[in-house]
């Protein structure tokens, strides 16, 4: 068939491009990864690319285009970054491009070769396809001396991105609302949490738990709390994949979304979820019209910025019955270099500078810096000395990378999509005949079928 020919041709082309670019930029990993991808011989493991240091910086020159999702600060903060970057790398000209709907727009552009030099790795691109689009940044075993969170975008031991910030997920709440409701202790278990929501409903005018149903993507934030409910950093990538019973009673997924279902059923959510508005919900939480929202740390800064009294905005881990409380740390977008970049050295220099020296991860990013040993953000200092631990998720077993994603897509469950969360809320408020157990059973059946297919195929 003609197509196979074209594909082979394309693969050969990728290999060649990889070879040339590899030679040009003393970056042996490029050769390596491209060769592995194209099915050629792998050769010996290459050394990691070191970030250019000292005088070498002066030799790097060229124009690079950095594509970002931050339309809000591209013309202000990013301009300052570029100026600071130029102090160190005077011969690199940095251009910025901000996309308002990053994920969708970049995905379309990636079908061409013109998608900037430095960009965020779209989460919707299958992990195994990353080597086709992104320059290898180095071996994970080397880079991990310096950074955390690399495992999310690593293929065959080679890392393709470094997180721009590391988020932690849980409940963002208004302390004043809790005080007014007479809740003095931060709820820890499911029962304590639901009791707290009920007292908010009884004693204040605030919405106890705002779901942000209409925005949709906000519901996906719940999924990040799975590890807290499981109380186990290995559950998400290892335990889940090994189980046919992902959504049965007693399992983390069942317990996690039961909180959502019960809150909706007991009328503890907004009056009309179908017409919620994300932008105004931030202000409402900041000013005491909303008690809690399930979000990531990235939202804290935005909400505090809208609050009359920023100290009212607090963070607590998602409730759990697990023995210890684990707040999962997970990557925000990863920053990587396009395989089609003409100035890969300059692009790489920007990546390293942005993560290490710009200050973005903690200031604008609002989370933790991926650089090991960096200082914790202010809001987390209150947890120092408690039994609450912050930890990244354990990576998948070797050979099982990307399975969660593959099973999820095959089954059309959408762990990171709003759909089944919306169904749960609709069922809870009586718009659907299904019970919570019906929904969970359906999801589990889908999971089981898809898992069988993926496990046998690999």
């Amino acid at each position, binding site marked *: 068939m003609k197509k196979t020919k074209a594909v082979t041709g394309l693969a050969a082309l990728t290999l060649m491009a990889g070879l040339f670019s590899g030679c040009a930029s003393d970056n042996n990993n490029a050769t390596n990864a491209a060769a592995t991808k194209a099915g050629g011989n792998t050769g010996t493991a290459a050394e990691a690319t070191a970030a250019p240091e000292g005088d070498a910086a002066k030799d790097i020159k060229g124009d690079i285009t950095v594509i970002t999702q931050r339309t809000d600060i591209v013309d202000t903060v990013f301009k300052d970054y570029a100026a600071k970057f130029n102090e160190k790398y005077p011969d690199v000209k940095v251009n910025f491009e901000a996309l308002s709907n990053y994920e969708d727009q970049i995905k379309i552009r990636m079908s061409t070769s013109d998608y900037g030099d430095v960009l965020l790795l779209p989460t919707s691109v299958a992990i195994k*396809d990353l080597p086709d689009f992104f320059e290898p940044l180095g071996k994970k075993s080397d880079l991990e001396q310096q950074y955390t969170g690399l495992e999310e975008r690593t293929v065959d031991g080679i890392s393709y991105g470094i997180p721009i910030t590391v988020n932690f997920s849980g409940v963002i709440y208004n302390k004043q609302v809790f005080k007014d409701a007479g809740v003095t202790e931060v709820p820890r278990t499911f029962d304590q949490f639901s009791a707290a929501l009920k007292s908010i409903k009884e004693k204040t005018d605030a919405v106890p738990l705002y779901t942000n149903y209409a925005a949709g993507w906000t519901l996906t934030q719940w999924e990040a709390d799975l590890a807290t409910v499981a109380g186990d950093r290995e559950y998400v990538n290892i335990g889940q994949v090994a189980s046919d019973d992902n959504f049965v009673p007693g399992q983390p997924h069942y317990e996690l979304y039961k909180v959502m279902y019960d809150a909706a059923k007991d009328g503890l959510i907004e009056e009309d979820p179908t017409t919620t508005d994300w932008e105004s919900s931030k202000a409402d939480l900041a000013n005491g019209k909303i008690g809690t929202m399930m979000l990531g740390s990235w939202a804290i800064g935005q909400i505090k910025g809208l609050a009359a009294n920023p100290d009212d905005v607090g963070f607590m881990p998602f409730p759990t019955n697990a023995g210890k409380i684990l707040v999962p740390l997970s990557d925000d977008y990863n920053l990587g270099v396009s395989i089609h970049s003409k100035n890969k050295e300059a692009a790489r220099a920007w990546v390293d500078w942005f993560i290490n020296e710009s200050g973005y991860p903690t200031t604008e990013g609002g989370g933790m810096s991926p650089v090991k040993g960096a200082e914790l953000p202010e809001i987390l200092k209150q947890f120092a000395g408690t039994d609450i631990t912050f930890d990244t998720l354990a990576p998948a077993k070797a050979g099982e990378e990307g399975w969660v994603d593959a099973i999820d897509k095959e089954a059309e469950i959408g762990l990171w999509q709003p759909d089944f969360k919306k169904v749960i809320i609709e069922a809870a408020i009586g718009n659907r005949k299904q019970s919570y157990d019906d929904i969970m059973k359906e999801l589990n059946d889908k999971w089981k079928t898809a898992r069988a297919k993926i496990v046998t195929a690999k």
Partner: protein
Amino acid sequence: MPKLSNMSYKNQRILIIFLFSLVPVVLLLTFSYLPVFKMFQYSFTSWNGLSKNMEYIGFDNYKTIFTKPEYFAVFKVSLYYFFATFVQMGLALYFATILSFNVRMKNWFKGILFFPTLLNGVAIGFIFLFFFKPEGTLNTILDLLGLGVLQQKWLLNPQLINISLAFASVWRYMGMNFIIFLGAISSIGSDIYEASEIDGANRWHQFRHIIIPSIKRILQLNLILAVSGAIGVFEIPYVMTGGSNGSGTFVIQTVDVAFKYSKLGLASAMAVILLGIVVLVTILQRILIKEEK
């Protein structure tokens, strides 16, 4: 160098026609036929939309769609829009007829009615989202009119959501139908009306015996457009509810499959099936309407 004036008139004409058609034909091929051709091609693969390798899997995608009833269950929602189509055409015809006679501020009314067609569909989605909020425009108006008892949560109630959305759709597309009807009605000579008035016909008679028969063809055309529109409803429910709460349509489902679950091959197969359905309905309508004569 050959001069244009040296060519025969006939050849000049051919050349000009060719050159002028080149641009639209190239545009048509690139942006209509090539994508459709590609869509057919993708529908036989398990492509995820980005991967460099495309695996050919024959008719598996079609098999999946036809063996899973949930893919077709959403066509129920299209029925709401199908019935709304008749309301839309009725209203359009009513306003077109009235405004084809001498009415005060005629052009102003025409503008008002056509205006929604000019708006961006996404903007309309947001306008109506606000309109249907519990404390939004519709409920406020009902309250002011003393009809507070009729207040509803228009998008929350599963019995009302599709009717509410279909209403927004009628508002959006009626202007287009209206302008087509108005054009057709305007083409009827004024002497016919004058003659009928002398014979003692009133407005209703004129409508029944002059306007309707004269615009029959246009009515059929609008009907075909409206029905295929009802099958392919997309932007209003997508923008307003994202297809949640039982308002999902086949096209929304297709988009979800393609971009949420990265199954571009399967989604292409769904699009091919939708195309097939629209073609089928159109052919059926043409046959049925012809037989009526």
